[in-house]
């Protein structure tokens, strides 16, 4: 393959700078004692202290994490079951129909999901707040998990299951000792994606959250509408750190679990 010449390299570097500049700009000014994002006065950690002293913000932070973890866990469980039901479906037309239905929530704009869930919750009488937010996050994460798990299931040779059955495995054994271990990378990927979708979601939460309950995205939105507060910058510094740790963790886990598997495949 041809080597990169100078111009493309410069182009890539420029794209990288543009992609990262706003993030580092935010983090840089989180250490500014000046209180704005235009001139840097002196180094301070007071905004970070402000984040940890603000109990309301801490509660919101905990809410966000609890919703993300719970919704990722539950949607992963349902998503894996969904992927299994799709794979074991005999009727091809039916399978395609279910797959299309599955993908509707992935391509649907957030506003539509938010608005329609708001109607749904009002109709069936779910109180807007923690429950409605959690249910929505589970609902929009399920199709992503299915999409991540399905290819792994399709990759799995049916002879593996036949072999297990011939060797006397029960159906439960087949599921827990053959299928689940094989699709584990897909499950993990689905879980992590569900986690990030939940942490990142603003629009859907904005629609279905009541007055008493708020997640980080919604809170940042109302703070940002009021103007610049360096507390948000400090928050973004913390979030960036957590995100990088998550990404690296995901990267190493997926590499670890993939290595022995690809050995089996070839």
């Amino acid at each position: 393959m041809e080597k990169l010449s100078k111009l493309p390299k410069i182009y890539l570097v420029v794209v990288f700078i543009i992609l990262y500049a706003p993030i580092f700009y935010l983090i840089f000014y989180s250490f500014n004692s000046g209180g704005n994002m235009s001139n840097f006065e002196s180094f301070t950690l007071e905004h970070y202290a402000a984040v940890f002293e603000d109990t309301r913000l801490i509660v919101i932070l905990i809410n966000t994490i609890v919703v993300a973890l719970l919704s990722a866990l539950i949607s992963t469980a349902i998503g894996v079951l969904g992927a299994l039901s799709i794979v074991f479906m005999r009727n091809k037309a039916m399978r395609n129909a279910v797959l299309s239905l599955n993908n509707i929530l992935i391509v649907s704009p957030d506003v539509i999901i938010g608005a329609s869930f708001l109607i749904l919750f009002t109709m069936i009488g779910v109180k807007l707040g923690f429950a409605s937010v959690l249910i929505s996050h589970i609902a929009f994460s399920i199709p992503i998990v299915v999409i991540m798990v399905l290819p792994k299931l399709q990759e799995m040779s049916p002879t593996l299951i036949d072999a297990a059955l011939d060797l006397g495995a029960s159906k439960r054994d087949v599921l827990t000792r053959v299928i689940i271990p094989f699709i584990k990378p897909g499950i993990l990927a689905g879980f992590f994606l569900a986690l990030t979708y939940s942490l990142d979601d603003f629009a859907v939460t904005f629609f279905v959250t009541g007055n008493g309950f708020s997640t980080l995205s919604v809170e940042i939105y109302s703070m940002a509408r009021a103007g610049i507060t360096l507390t948000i910058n400090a928050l973004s510094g913390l979030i960036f750190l957590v995100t990088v740790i998550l990404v690296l963790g995901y990267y190493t886990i997926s590499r670890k679990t993939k290595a022995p598997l690809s050995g089996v495949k070839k």
Partner: protein
Amino acid sequence: MGYRIMNNKPLRPLYTIPYTAWILLFVIAPIALIVYYSFFDLAGHFTLDNYINFFSSVYLKLTISSFWYAFLITLFTLLFAYPTAYFLTKTKHKQLWLLLIIIPSWINLLLKTYAFIGLFGLYGPINALLETVGIGSQQILFTDFSFVFVSVYIFIPFMILPIFNSLDKLNPALIDASHDLGANSWTTFRRVIWPLTLNGVKSGIQVVFIPALSLFMITRLIAGNKVITLGTAIEQQFLVTQNWGMGSTIAVFLILFMFIIMLITSSNDRGTTINGKTK
């Protein structure tokens, strides 16, 4: 398929229940409810007024401008993303570079948007730069330029992923063959590379255009209500005016547009999905 277990067995219905329930309750029911609500006015009477309203000049203008902005956003995203994806496939540690490109897309959307409030502000670094170059400070925030710029910034990683994947699958021997047969670089790109990566481009367009039609957070924070998209209109009707009927009607049309765009951009190769994971 050769699966022997879990077919026609009593276990089958049990484990399919949660997923089936999810489809019924959170995929079919919400869409049905949106359609249902679009036929009611504020007082709760059955009416077609919402639809008549939608075809009034106000909403038609709004729809056209929303499409225009979505088109611009998609176009610029593609223009920046394609070369980036192309050069990325030529780097040494391309998976690592790809990961680095994706990390910003995992940072909370709100925070990235918020950063631009500072960057584009009257005393922000961009205006300081313009000042030193001699152009003088400009009102950047709350213009349609800033809206398009920030949206492109947000969407670029989502466009890069599918294009990168289709470029990555491309057999390099084809490019060599094209060169050997006397095609220059441009012809090779136009006749070989571009057609073979069209599916990636299509799924990229799909994941950018539909959300671009329905943005409402960026319009509020960056465009300061200068730009009204279909998404902004829906949010307005649902959460501010509390006119769920009209909001649902706009939503019905947005869903229709979504299906049309999906039909146009759906590729024959069913492999490329939103997350760019190809199998």
